């Protein structure tokens, strides 16, 4: 297997499961460049793990193909592909010591004992587990097991590292630590990585590019800032934290600038997709809907509920028009107070009403 490659190409990769009409993964096309960190992001059941298993060879394709540079690899069994994989529950071999777990891939490749021992030691140092070589997985904490799983996947120097929700079994603090670890290891080794997660923060902080999926279909592929700031459609917007979604009437549109109305409420926003018909969805992030004295898109209302979050408060505002909006306000805001919100027109995203 070539350790380095220029491009991994997924061409309309499709996977159907018996007894289900809809494809679990529908025509996923994606090019992964050498050294790139890709996150497959979506809610559970969106097909992201199916995609990963198809790439690893643990699932057969129902259609499409996978090319590694010029070679077609989707016809190879997993043991011939040589991708390192980190599993959600780590899948460490319980009867093998840490050393033998990490060395397993090298043993299968027939690497000599001396060289294998050296490479296992290097991998152990990389994941900062030196001194734990002779322990069994059952004697390690969750975070340590995760490190062993990562070391085991990268010690074989795979062209591609696959990670299936590797942090979802860890507690919040450890998850942040391991996230930084994964980023550091990726920076040090520069191995191409495909990372499956349902956590937006993980995807945004780790990935060079994010693939957002829903019900087996790719919704958007883009850099983190693009996914965060310009969701391609309403599903992506909702998933990326645009909690205020309102149905409004289109009053006028010129180019991407749109004016919308809902009773007495009037907003100017930016169309993200070509609009059709008189109605549209408006999506606004709570963080961008700020309590202020004045500004564009002024909305008046009464605070119904205020959650203290330390630096500021998360407030629920009932507008004069009757809609309930989530917004951020200075700490100390209390229920029952009058409030004026405003939001920049380029942060009022408008999507067609389908």
């Amino acid at each position, binding site marked *: 297997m070539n350790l380095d490659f220029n491009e991994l190409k997924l061409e309309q990769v499709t996977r159907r499961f018996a007894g289900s009409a809809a494809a679990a993964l529908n025509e996923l096309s994606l090019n992964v460049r050498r050294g790139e960190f890709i996150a497959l992001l979506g809610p559970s059941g969106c097909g992201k793990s199916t995609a990963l298993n198809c790439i*690893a*060879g*643990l699932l057969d394709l129902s259609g499409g193909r996978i090319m590694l540079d010029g070679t077609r690899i989707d016809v190879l*069994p*997993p*043991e011939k*592909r*040589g*991708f*390192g*994989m980190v*599993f959600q*529950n*780590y*899948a*460490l*071999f*319980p*009867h093998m010591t840490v050393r033998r777990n990490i060395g*397993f*891939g090298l043993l*299968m*490749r027939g690497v000599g004992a001396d060289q294998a021992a050296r490479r296992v030691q290097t991998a152990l140092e990389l994941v900062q587990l030196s001194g734990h070589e002779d322990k*069994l*997985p*059952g004697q390690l904490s*969750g975070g340590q*097991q995760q490190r062993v*799983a990562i070391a*085991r*996947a990268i010690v*074989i120097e795979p062209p591609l590292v*696959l990670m299936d929700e590797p942090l979802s*079994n860890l507690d919040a603090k450890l998850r942040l630590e391991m996230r930084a670890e994964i980023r550091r290891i990726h920076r040090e080794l520069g191995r191409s990585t495909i990372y499956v997660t349902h956590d937006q923060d993980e995807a945004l902080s780790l990935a060079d590019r994010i693939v957002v999926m829903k019900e087996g279909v790719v919704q958007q592929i883009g850099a983190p800032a693009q996914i965060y700031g310009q969701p391609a459609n309403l599903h992506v917007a909702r998933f990326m934290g645009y909690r205020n979604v309102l149905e409004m009437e289109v009053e006028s549109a010129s180019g991407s600038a749109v004016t919308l109305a809902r009773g007495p409420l009037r907003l100017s926003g930016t169309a993200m997709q070509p609009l059709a018909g008189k109605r549209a969805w408006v999506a606004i992030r709570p963080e961008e809907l700020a309590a202020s004295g004045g500004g564009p898109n002024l909305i008046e209302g009464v605070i119904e509920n205020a959650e203290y979050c330390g630096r500021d408060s998360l407030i629920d505002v009932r507008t004069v028009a009757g809609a309930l909006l989530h917004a951020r306000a200075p700490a100390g805001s209390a229920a029952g107070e009058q409030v004026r919100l405003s939001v920049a027109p380029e942060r009022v995203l408008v999507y067609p009403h389908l």
Partner: protein
Amino acid sequence: MMAAPRFDRALLLVTPATLFMLLLFIYPFIYGLVLSFQPMEEAGWLANYQKFFSTANLWMTIGTTLKLALPATMVNVALALPMAFKMRGTSRIQKLVTMLLVIPVTLGTVLIAEGMLTYFGPRGWLSQTLQWLHLYEGPIRLTHNYWGVLISLVISGFPFVFLLMLSYITGIDPVLARAASTLGASPAAQFRHIYLPLLIPGIAMAFCLAFVQAFSVLPSAVLLGAPAGPTRVISIAAYEAAFEQYDYSMASAIAMIMGFVQLVVVAAVLSLRGLFYRGPVAGGKG
């Protein structure tokens, strides 16, 4: 802080089971043990054991029984392991095979022996079919000898071993084998490095249970074997002592020897198991 209660009343719940064990297992066992040291004839307290080990047609039953029980158990484990392994994922075939295999367990050895007599006998279907196909003309002797008993032990013991092995194998997280495959392990290597080491405790346990069952063979040794010679197993000796010579003391002594031999084999197998990994068979915290 509250002091821990000195007596957990929930422990009372084990009383019926304990009484049951005492009445139906421990008491008869001790009774038999004591009885075996009280020979019928006026002789020393070890007379029964001395007689057993000095009479050829008694002590030789140990070897005869081992020669049947050990191969039968090994064949059963050797057949059940790959079959159960192949069957670990495919749930519909698994259900069907499991159902088919439960039948011999429920039938009991006597019915199996009857069936085998008509099937494997000199004028049975097997013999007639082979002759009709001109595959084998001579008489087939698979009953009333060693082979008849061995076959019946395999038939009656296999489902038991298979079901045990299947439950051990399906208890192993299949994601471990998948992880091994991504690390370059072929299916054969996955079996050797992942499944086999994790199955050793299960194999040892299945071997012990199947062996104990086979060692106490009686009906098929009488019905399908040659109870006077090659298949004169130890339980026949005990049966004769008890119900033909009415020497319960001698019968108890034979039963004790039988139990001791079983114990030795089981202890040997389980101590071998101790050389291998015996922890949980799941990967990580799950």
